[in-house]
């Protein structure tokens, strides 16, 4: 149950074989399809939570999906506040989803 990538064999648009991309998310390797956004790679395995908020420690994930709401911001290769729905995943990307709460309180550098 939940979010998933459409299995190629079931997809009515009949996709050709696509390459893969592997990124490291919070220390764990996650594979996706070449050309997917970081949010897409994570949602393909039903991972919806991308950060926790600074004040209420509430979970957040993709909301608007088109780069407007900034709810899906993560840290990518040491750069924070990157919108996961807008950034394509590249092989070897290091993604940290620890969230703005931890960073602002100084718990995570």
């Amino acid at each position, binding site marked *: *149950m*939940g*979010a*998933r*990538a*459409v299995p190629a064999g*079931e*997809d*009515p*648009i*009949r*996709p*050709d074989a*696509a*390459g893969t991309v592997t990124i490291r998310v919070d220390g764990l390797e996650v594979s996706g*399809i*070449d*050309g*997917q*956004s970081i*949010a*897409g790679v994570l*949602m*393909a395995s039903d991972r*919806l*939570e*991308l950060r926790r*908020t*600074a*004040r*209420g420690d*509430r*979970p*957040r*994930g*993709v*909301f*608007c*999906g*088109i*780069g*407007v*709401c*900034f*709810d899906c*911001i993560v840290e990518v290769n040491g*750069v924070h*506040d*990157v*919108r996961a*729905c*807008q*950034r*394509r995943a590249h092989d070897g990307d290091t993604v940290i989803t620890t969230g703005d709460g931890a960073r602002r309180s100084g718990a995570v550098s």
Partner: protein
Amino acid sequence: MRQVVIVGAGPAGLAAARAARGAGADVVLLDSSDALGGQFWRHLPESRPSQHEKRLHHGWDRFRELRDSLEADPRVRIVRGGQVWAIETFAGVAVHVVVGESDGALRDREVFAPDALVLATGAHDRTLPFPGWDLPGVFTGGAAQALAKGERIAVGQRVIVAGAGPFLLPVAQSLASTGSTVLAVLEANSAGSIIRGWSRRPWELIPASGKGMELVGYAAGQLRHRIPYRTGRAVVAAHGTDRVESVTVAALNADWSPIPGSEQRVEVDAVCVSHGFTPRLELAVAAGCDLSGEGFVVVDDDQLTSTPGVYAAGEITGIGGVDLAIAEGEIAGRHAGGALGGAASARRRRRVFTGFAKRIEAAHGIKPGWTGWLTEPTIVCRCEEVTCGAIRQAARTTRSESLRSLKLTTRAGLGICQGRMCGRTVEDLLGAASTEGSLQDDASPHRRPIAFPLRLGELADPTRQLEHETSKGTQ
């Protein structure tokens, strides 16, 4: 050579680019994304070819033809990943851009000083707040669409689509194309209000029959997938610990106030909610363009705004859909490119589809009773986590009737999204809470001197400024 800069490569921007070239101008086409097509033609990247991608789109052949002709034209420079962050109009128009990977730290800065500028920045979903709407698994309709069309991701397996407007139908269809089960499409307006809105002056619909057929296509898709369409109903709360597990659906009165006792709990793993669209106005405001009372860019018969040399086309001049956007883009691009008069066919289509847009607003517009589903702890400003209660209390205790001071008191609308998600809602709530019933200042929620968040380091790095010997002409 006359140069036209176009911001936004959706239907309006693409049509404007072609028309400006047709008028003999050189064109720079900027888009913040790395692909052309905007949200309407959001598609899979080149690394993911398929046999039948066309099935996910309306007007796909038209898009491919537009894109291919612009890409092949040496006098069109397409800037992908080009984020406009400021527009100045002190002495002619200057467009400030950072170019590179989205939110990257090492983007190049560029400044364009074109003879004419066409703004085709489009719109995004307007989603009204409800308890639990910040939980992962609550999406805008646009997110479900973008993930389905651009990534082939299904946002959930048991999904409810809710809100208002004809856009709910293509959202449901996109979800169905990813194999999701759409439990229902819930339209907040009553069937009576929809029928009255659509059927006013029905003869006007005849020339817009292509548009009608697009909607009939969605409706047929819905029948094929056996998706129930229910009117006068809304998702009034989402529930779950770390993600959505269920929603509360309620019946609504004609003014959208929830009918007590009508609530039903439905198990879902995702919910997609859109109550219409809001235009992306920040660049138009930065360029000094006048806005209408309804909050759209005012244009004349040639799509020229109140700022000399600045044209606007597409959803920022009024929500009207793809056909209207293309017609407006053709007119704007042609005039920005230096042509005088003409474009009779585009002007005719613009007239027809403008009527269509008014019909949609009449049938599907937001009604004020929606605030009835808010609770005091409901988050209104998602970025700064400002609740409905905090906003109402600030309005009561400070007795302030100024949007600016209330924003500063509560921080609502001051977060990283720069008020794009909650701006209009905060305005409405403060307006309703103020003693006069309306705000007393003219502060605009769209006024953003820096039109888009960017890193100070990017501004400060002298090696990132690309010098233009002459800002005119293509490279």
